[in-house]
């Protein structure tokens, strides 16, 4: 039968996939994939600082990822450089500063590969509690923020004009992203977190007729990817984090195959959209 560590990995991974689904939908809708990457990369700086100052790992990753997103907002408002240039600067410098700090600390030995690509098979009971506790918190927050977040995704000024608070929703959304990155780091690793956000959501798009179904489907597809990836990694002895991403990619590629008749059943022939 399955080993105990494997069950723990499965439970933790599915917990992450459940949260990553709806959050990943917003990352796609708001075109924030690179932004998510930047926040994730800054997690390594969080790891380095937690070792340097003997802080809790998850808290310090959360704080650094939030700080980087606030810094980005500030730099965007100054408007000197385009957003993608700013993201490129922040993303790689946070990652590099983290690596440099780690190199200076000759007295600590850390498993860098474990942080970069995840080590889901080392998940403990306490990790599972954090994943599911944090995950339930994030899902409740998303349900509460759903309307202002969705409305401001479509048009922030429309949301503001009709009495919603798009700025506040956006801030909370970034905090939720930071939280999920801090929680998910151990499962898929810093370099692969955004793929767990984006790939299941992108897969769900084709089968969804409303934002809500897309969010739920993305969660389920993510859970299937986690299970598939873990079984594959056990079977072929491949690294678990990348295996999960490969499984998610396989589902995405499957979704592109012309099986269903969804597209033809649309009331209008698609002419590429007028926007």
């Amino acid at each position, binding site marked *: 039968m399955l080993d105990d560590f494997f069950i723990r990995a499965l439970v933790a991974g599915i917990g992450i996939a459940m949260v990553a689904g709806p959050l990943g939908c917003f990352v*796609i*809708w708001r*075109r924030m994939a690179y932004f998510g990457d930047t926040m994730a990369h800054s997690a390594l700086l969080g790891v380095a600082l937690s070792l340097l100052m003997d802080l809790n790992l998850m808290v310090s990753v959360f704080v650094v990822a939030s700080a980087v997103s606030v810094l980005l907002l500030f730099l965007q408002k100054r408007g000197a450089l385009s957003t993608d240039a700013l993201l490129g600067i922040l993303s790689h410098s946070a990652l590099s500063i983290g690596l440099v700090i780690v190199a200076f600390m000759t007295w600590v030995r850390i498993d860098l590969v474990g942080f970069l690509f995840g080590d889901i098979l080392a998940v403990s009971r306490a990790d599972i509690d954090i994943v599911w506790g944090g995950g339930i918190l994030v899902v409740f927050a998303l349900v509460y923020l759903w*309307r202002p977040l*969705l*409305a401001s*995704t*479509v*048009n922030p*000024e*429309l*949301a*503001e*004009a*009709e*009495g*919603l608070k798009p700025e506040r929703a956006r801030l909370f959304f970034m905090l939720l992203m930071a939280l999920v990155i801090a929680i998910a780091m151990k499962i898929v690793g810093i370099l692969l977190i955004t793929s767990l956000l984006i790939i299941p959501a*992108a897969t769900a*798009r084709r089968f*969804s*007729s*409303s*934002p809500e*179904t*897309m969010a739920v489907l993305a969660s389920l597809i993510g859970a299937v990817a986690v299970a598939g990836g873990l079984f594959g990694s056990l079977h072929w002895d491949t690294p678990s984090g990348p295996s999960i991403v490969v499984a998610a990619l396989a589902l995405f590629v499957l979704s592109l195959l012309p099986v269903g008749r969804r597209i033809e059943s*649309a*009331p*209008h022939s*698609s002419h590429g*959209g*007028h*926007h």
Partner: protein
Amino acid sequence: MLNFRSPETTTLVSLANAGVCRNGKWLVRGVDFSISRGEIVTLIGPNGSGKTTTAKTAIGVLKPDEGHVERVAGLRVGYVPQKLAVDWTLPLTVERLMTLTGPLKRREIDEALAATGMLHMAKAEVQHLSGGEFQRALLARAIARKPDLLVLDEPVQGVDFSGEIALYELIKQIRNRTGCGILLISHDLHIVMAETDTVVCLNGHVCCRGTPQVVSQSPEYLKLFGRRAAGALAVYSHHHDHTHLPDGRVLHADGSITESCFPDDGHHHGEAGNIHDHEPDCGCGHHTRLQGYDGAEKRDA
């Protein structure tokens, strides 16, 4: 929508000397106007003249950097923005679009969609709509929430001539049935909706204001627009005492040129003294667009 409301004459929004400044540049300045329940105010002006900025200031999306904006407490706004692009990755049907900013009853959704002629498209994804259908869906969304103030930023963009007339008819019906105030931004400098109570012409400030002349009274326009259009459209004659030159300076009626055209610069005289028509070129860098409608008669007749 579609409920009868008593025709109270409450002022919904009033702007007093409002101005918005960005990066040291005034986008718009010295704007005065108000909208009451049941009133239609149309903002016109060339591109970059501050129409959208003014509308956003009126509904509180932008804060004025000078002057005051007062809104009646609990004002419910329905907003149709000028640009709205729904990303392809977001699955959004017309029906789901309706409840974007607040919950609605099934009946309210259907009534609004029926009023805009979009009921048969309820299940369609918004990305598949044509320009005119999308505008009507946005209008349906805005009126379904029974707003006190409806703000329409160029609602007839991407809509053909007869569609434009139909939309104006619809806006008129909405005003008559619900008694809401309407702030309309027009893409056209000379042709406005006939029901407009006040036209405010902007070019960084209020250039002139007035009421439109109904087309149907003039046989030439009737010939040009066709009979159906005559009821929906009206002509607005500008009364400017100055012209905005391409380099941003201002040529005044007395022949002098200044850097700006604020009322305290000594070039604006009493309103009554200087009113004269500039047709067909009315100043403000505007050119008459009437010739653009030459084809309309054939299509509409």
